[in-house]
């Protein structure tokens, strides 16, 4: 009995989360529509308890369990903790918006919680099967969340595109995995695959073709060019709360997927996937930054900005060094922080019957609320990568990793393209500070939304001034995980 429990213990956060979500799912059935806020508090409590379990569990070195399919290491813990915090912020930001639009249903929270479970499974996966299942769990919830507002044609179209392309990506991923399975003589565990691929006499051609499919599938999920088509439509078409959810925490899980799959499982094939990532990174940074300039809808603009940021993340991964992986994970966390604040700001400016979706809605924000204009200013300079903000250090660390790996021309291209990108971030600042407001309504919004959003904005600044602890944490975690 005790030995059995000790096998389960490393996965305690996931088990606790699953049990609690199931309770919320059933409890929600007995809650009246007018008291839906109870579900909100239960969901927040679920996240809090899971976070406490995660922090409280004893820890030392990576622990493998479930026949090596699950790994509990510092990287996993740090990322899972950050995902939980991010989802909690998503809940807090979205509840009023959802309530005003009649979207405050129990399923909104339970599906997001299940999706969080998927992210945690993905982050801790140590086997192709668990990687895939975690990804499907995460994605399935997201398709449903995007489609939730059924009377909106835009949301339905976005959900359909997301679903079809997502299914295609899963197919590519599985096809690639099956080739790796064949090339390695029937291995699926990440370490076993890496060992088999490094051994002499491995069928390199087959493994390389498998890698192509796996990278294409991963790229679809992360949304990098040329597999980015769904991003702008989903970001613009989905209700803003869903965009907030789809566009933030899952990016952390996606980068963890890249690091585990490419950095650990397919590490011996790094020469093959590096070239693919170079092309995708350059295209993403170019297309994302240049197309974003032409947008008038801020959600669509942020969608293209996401594509360019994911290009920067790839820059870290393609360095194929521990420094690079640490930089990429740090970038994903920094991006999540900025994305939460940016989409949170759209939610703050929206009110019943009005969506602050256009750039014009940000005009003259300084007159209406100097404080929130300042918070948005912080987020924008961070996205543009101007010091002292978290975005600057994130960009700096991926560029340094790429430079150390010998991709000098790539670094030059990246810097030039981020200069192009600075234009549209600075344009938002110009609109806020130098233009006359179009929309005169006072900024309302719950106290908790305003406080959390302010803290979120300040965190962007704080991690920019003191980047070292988080960077050191990821450096340490990557070294521990990818020995």
């Amino acid at each position: 009995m005790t030995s059995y429990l000790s096998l389960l213990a490393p996965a305690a956060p996931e088990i606790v989360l699953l049990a609690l979500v199931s309770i919320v799912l059933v409890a929600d059935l007995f809650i009246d529509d007018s008291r839906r806020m109870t579900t909100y508090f239960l969901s927040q409590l679920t996240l809090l308890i899971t976070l406490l379990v995660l922090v409280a569990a004893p820890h030392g070195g990576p622990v493998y369990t479930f026949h090596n399919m699950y790994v509990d290491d510092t990287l996993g813990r740090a990322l899972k903790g950050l995902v939980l915090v991010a989802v909690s912020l998503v809940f807090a930001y979205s509840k009023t918006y959802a309530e005003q639009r009649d979207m405050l249903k129990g399923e909104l929270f339970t599906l997001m919680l299940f999706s969080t479970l998927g992210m945690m499974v993905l982050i801790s996966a140590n086997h192709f099967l668990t990687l895939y299942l975690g990804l499907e769990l995460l994605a399935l919830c997201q398709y449903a969340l995007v489609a939730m507002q059924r009377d909106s044609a835009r949301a339905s179209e976005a959900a359909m595109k997301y679903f079809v392309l997502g299914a295609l990506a899963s197919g590519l991923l599985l096809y690639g995995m099956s080739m790796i399975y064949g090339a390695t003589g029937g291995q699926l565990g990440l370490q076993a695959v890496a060992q088999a691929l490094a051994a002499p006499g491995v069928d390199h051609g087959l493994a390389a073709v498998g890698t192509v499919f796996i990278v294409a599938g991963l790229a679809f999920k992360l949304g990098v060019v040329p597999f980015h088509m769904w991003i702008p439509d989903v970001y613009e078409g989905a209700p803003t709360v869903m965009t907030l959810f789809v566009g933030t925490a899952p990016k952390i899980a996606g980068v963890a997927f890249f690091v585990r799959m490419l950095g650990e499982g397919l590490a011996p094939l790094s020469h093959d996937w590096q070239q693919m990532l170079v092309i995708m990174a350059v295209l993403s940074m170019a297309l994302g930054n240049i197309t974003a300039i032409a947008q008038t809808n801020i959600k669509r603009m942020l969608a293209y900005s996401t594509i360019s940021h994911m290009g920067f993340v790839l820059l870290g991964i393609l360095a194929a060094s521990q420094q690079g992986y640490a930089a990429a994970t740090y970038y994903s966390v920094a991006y999540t922080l900025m994305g939460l604040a940016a989409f949170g700001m759209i939610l703050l400016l929206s009110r019943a019957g009005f969506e602050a979706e256009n750039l014009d809605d940000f005009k003259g924000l300084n007159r209406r609320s100097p404080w929130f204009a300042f918070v948005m200013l912080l987020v924008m300079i961070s996205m543009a990568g101007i010091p002292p903000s978290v975005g600057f250090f994130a960009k700096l660390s991926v560029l340094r990793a790429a430079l150390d790996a010998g991709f000098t021309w790539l670094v030059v291209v990246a810097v030039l393209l981020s200069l192009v990108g600075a234009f549209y971030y600075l344009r938002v600042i110009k609109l806020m500070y130098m233009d006359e407001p179009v929309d005169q309504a006072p900024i309302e919004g719950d106290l908790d939304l305003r406080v959390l959003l302010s803290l979120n904005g300040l965190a962007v600044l704080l991690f920019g001034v003191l980047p070292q602890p988080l960077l050191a944490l990821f450096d340490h975690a990557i070294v521990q995980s990818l020995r």
Partner: protein
Amino acid sequence: MIDFQVLVFYSFALLLVGAGIGVIVARNPVHAALFLVLAFFSGAGLWMLLEAEFLAISLVLVYVGAVMVLFLFVVMMLDINLDQLREGFWKYFPIGALVALLMVGELWMVVSGRDVMRTGQGLPPAAADASNTREIGLQLYTTYLYPFELAAVVLLVAIVAAIALTLRRRKGTKYQNPAEQVRVKRADRVRMVSIPATGKTGE
């Protein structure tokens, strides 16, 4: 001399590929669904050859028996306008052909130079009393316990999502409430109206 097993393999394999092509080229969606049934049957036949009897039978029972029947119902209920679906076929044909060519090229890279037509020794024969079901159960509940449970969670999410997306009360929908029907009183249904006599009864 080709031995019997290889012959059976190739006939099932050809049937499978043919049915697969049938699924995508059939003009009538019902025919396409039936081709898919044929494909599942041939797949089950191949698994039989591998001595995976349990999987073969459950493929037939679950997919052909349940899933495909449901699928056929849906296909028959939807009024699919094929001409509309095929609109723009030639517009997208070049890009589709390019992708297909790329895939064929990649497959060629995998297949070429390898002796794919070689028939190996095959799997070692299982013991006469080996139970497929037992072996699969043992694997599922020991080695693959974690993915198995995760698959269960994915199914749970599928149920929640399907209900969340389809269940809603439309205004003006007529539905029956049996409890109310049983509890109905005469007074709810029959209204006694007293009609005053007009005095013409005598005529």
